[in-house]
């Protein structure tokens, strides 16, 4: 009996050990299964759209996609952990967008040029540039991303609050300072009417999240300070850039200091400005995508169609009347080095960037994100005359003058954003510091960061 029990135990242990060792072999036998991690959408329709596209690929290919839809912030942590540990999915997205150039620098992604080639002529120039990054190991710039969606930073306004201040939307100046000064006047009028807690401007003067850098960049371009990093990846802090930076820091920090921005904005996270805007506690917000609008479309269609205004088409010009090049950040799919099923991952991505699939994905997602191909902006969905937001948004972020974000040219800018260098400058002015001193301190820090990312060759 003892012998049998011993044999049984030893046999069981042997089987367990054998099964453990054999598991990867079994997994490898299922060569047509791949894993994909995507961030959860801000509206449920985005997830529905993604699942639909993935189901379409599974049906067309017979392959299986193990899809994980993960909330935005945890997905970022999951990707960083995966890249660090080496246990990676077959496909993921650049969340945050900056990780594409950051990890390309370290040679952590698979080259995706063959995927891009299948639709290259259709992509916008900004989308194509955004998919490229500099690799410090190979000392070359190459395609490491596959553009799926884009987003720019429009201005969002409560028409009803402007009218409550006895002012008209049509009276808003079209030049940069005039446009934003208009909202200060709206606040002044609202104060006279006894509204003690509605603020004119929703500026994210905070050192949290991704919004403050996007806001600062919008103001840099508004003041003619385009090109802080050249497409070759070199830092440019010349007199024009410095002057624009001083003006941007002074306007943004000064508006806070002077009481036109909600005081809590100094410690907002990415969602706080949306919440404050939805609560009609500020007249306007400068915020990426039209999530502000689409988030309320189902519950408050009257807000979406009548009360909210997205300034994309009527985005202000520079103070001397020149159109502004908007920064369009692209959501790219990436394949980490170490992925088990690279051929299937590439096949999946080739499917995902077919125009009809991209169109269905962005349109089912209510248009919160922009398509990466200009031809997809000329559809009844984007040109719907009854929709007050979509046409302007797609004009601003896709059809009008656009460029990629600066981290695409050099990953140092990703670290500048993560260290919230711009935020520190804005906060310094908000706390009554001098704009020139704040910009000098910021530029000094930026130079230090760029010194860690030298790019010799474009």
């Amino acid at each position, binding site marked *: 009996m003892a012998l049998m029990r*011993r044999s049984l135990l030893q046999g069981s242990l042997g089987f367990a050990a054998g099964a453990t060792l054999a598991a990867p072999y079994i997994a490898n036998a299922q060569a047509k299964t791949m894993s994909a991690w995507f961030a959860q959408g801000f509206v449920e329709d985005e997830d529905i759209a993604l699942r639909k596209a993935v189901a379409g690929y599974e049906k067309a290919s017979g392959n299986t996609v193990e899809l994980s839809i993960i909330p935005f912030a945890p997905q970022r942590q999951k990707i960083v952990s995966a890249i660090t540990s080496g246990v990676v999915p077959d496909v993921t997205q650049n969340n945050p967008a900056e990780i594409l150039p950051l990890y390309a620098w370290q040679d952590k992604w698979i080259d995706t040029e063959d995927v891009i080639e299948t639709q290259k002529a259709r992509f916008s120039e900004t989308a194509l540039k955004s998919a490229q990054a500099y690799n410090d190991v190979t000392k070359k710039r190459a395609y490491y991303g596959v553009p799926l969606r884009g987003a720019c930073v429009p201005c969002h306004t409560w028409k009803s609050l402007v009218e409550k201040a006895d002012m008209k939307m049509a009276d808003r100046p079209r030049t940069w300072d005039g446009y934003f000064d208009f909202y200060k006047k709206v606040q002044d009028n609202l104060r006279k009417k006894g509204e003690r807690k509605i603020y004119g401007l929703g500026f994210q003067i905070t050192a949290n999240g991704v919004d403050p850098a996007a806001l600062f960049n919008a103001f840099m371009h508004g003041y003619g300070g385009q090109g802080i990093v050249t497409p070759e990846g070199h830092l440019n802090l010349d007199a024009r850039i410095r002057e624009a930076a001083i003006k941007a820091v002074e306007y943004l920090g000064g508006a806070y200091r002077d009481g036109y921005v909600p005081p809590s904005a*100094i410690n907002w996270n990415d969602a706080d400005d949306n919440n404050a805007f939805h609560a009609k506690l500020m007249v306007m917000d400068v915020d990426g995508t039209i999530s502000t609008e689409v988030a309320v479309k189902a519950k408050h269609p009257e807000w979406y169609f009548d009360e909210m205004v997205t300034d994309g088409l009527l985005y202000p010009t520079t103070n001397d009347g020149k159109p502004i090049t908007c920064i369009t950040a692209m959501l790219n799919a990436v394949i980490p080095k170490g992925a088990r099923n690279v051929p299937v991952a590439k096949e999946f991505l080739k499917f995902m960037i077919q125009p009809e699939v991209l169109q269905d994905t962005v349109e089912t997602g209510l248009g919160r994100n922009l398509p990466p191909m200009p031809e997809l902006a000329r559809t009844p969905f984007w040109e719907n005359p009854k929709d007050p937001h979509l046409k302007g948004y797609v004009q601003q972020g896709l059809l009008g003058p656009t460029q990629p974000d600066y981290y695409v040219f050099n990953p140092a800018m990703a670290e500048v954003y993560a260290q919230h260098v711009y935020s520190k400058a804005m906060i310094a002015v908000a706390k009554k510091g001098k704009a020139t001193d704040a910009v000098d301190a910021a530029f000094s820090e930026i130079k230090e960061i760029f010194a860690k990312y030298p790019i010799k060759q474009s």
Partner: protein
Amino acid sequence: MTAATVLDVGSPSAKQKRSFWRYWRGNLKGSEFTWALAFSVPYIAVFVAFVAYPVFYGLWMGRDPALYADVFSDGIYRDTVVNTLVFVVLGVNLKLFLALLLSGVFMRPGWLTKVMLMLFVLPWAVPQLPAFISLHWMLNGEWGLLNNALWILGGIEGPSWLNERWTALGAAIASHIWKWMPFWTVILLAGRMSIPQDIYDAAKVDGATGLNRFLFVTFPLLANLYLVLTLLATIFLLGDFNTVFFVTGGGPNNETHLLATLGIRNAFDLARPDLGVAVVMTALPVLIPLVIILMRKLRTAEVQL
């Protein structure tokens, strides 16, 4: 070399082998040893996978001395160390002292005390994330519940609680105490309930009532428990992440981070897991002695009144 030594050269190795197996198998014989192994292996595997491996992986990630130069030269880190000290000293001591006092209140008989105790433990029962996110919104300077209440009730314009370093840190400490004080109160209540009534009766005969009863009977009997709880609470608090992350977000301007939240910021916002680990590792010189003292204190079994 003597003959005896030569003879001993061969046999010790065989003896050592036998003694090793005897040591390894203990008094277990035959299948008993296999059973013991079968029961131990899962535990050892779990321990290695989820305790030993992560700890050593963390140590391995934080092995580069250059990381610590980066950490110590970071102004945010220096602020964070001060914040962590303030958070630990105030958070632990206020929480436990109040818990000690409240546990006395909840010793009183009667149904009202039971109802109050039930209500009192509610914050502890509420999940941390919604609780702290709610507090973040309640503390909003412009439209938060707290300032609105101050305005409506007294016409007072409350401050922007989360906009300045010390008010924000104070708000985080208050939130932590609110959330966790019930837990420690219940433990101290259990400690008080374990004191035999005979001791109180004897003390009463000796004239110890009221404050004297607390000072000379209750507190000495609870002192070791209180010290152990202080050490435990300090260890817990050194690793606390949720309170600051969800109440202040580490802001304004990264001025209210604790070591845990700064570690996460460095690891994931900067995509530098090694730098994040290094930040947390700097707590080890404090944490390890605390654990050793705690282990020693747990052995204390006698109290001299």
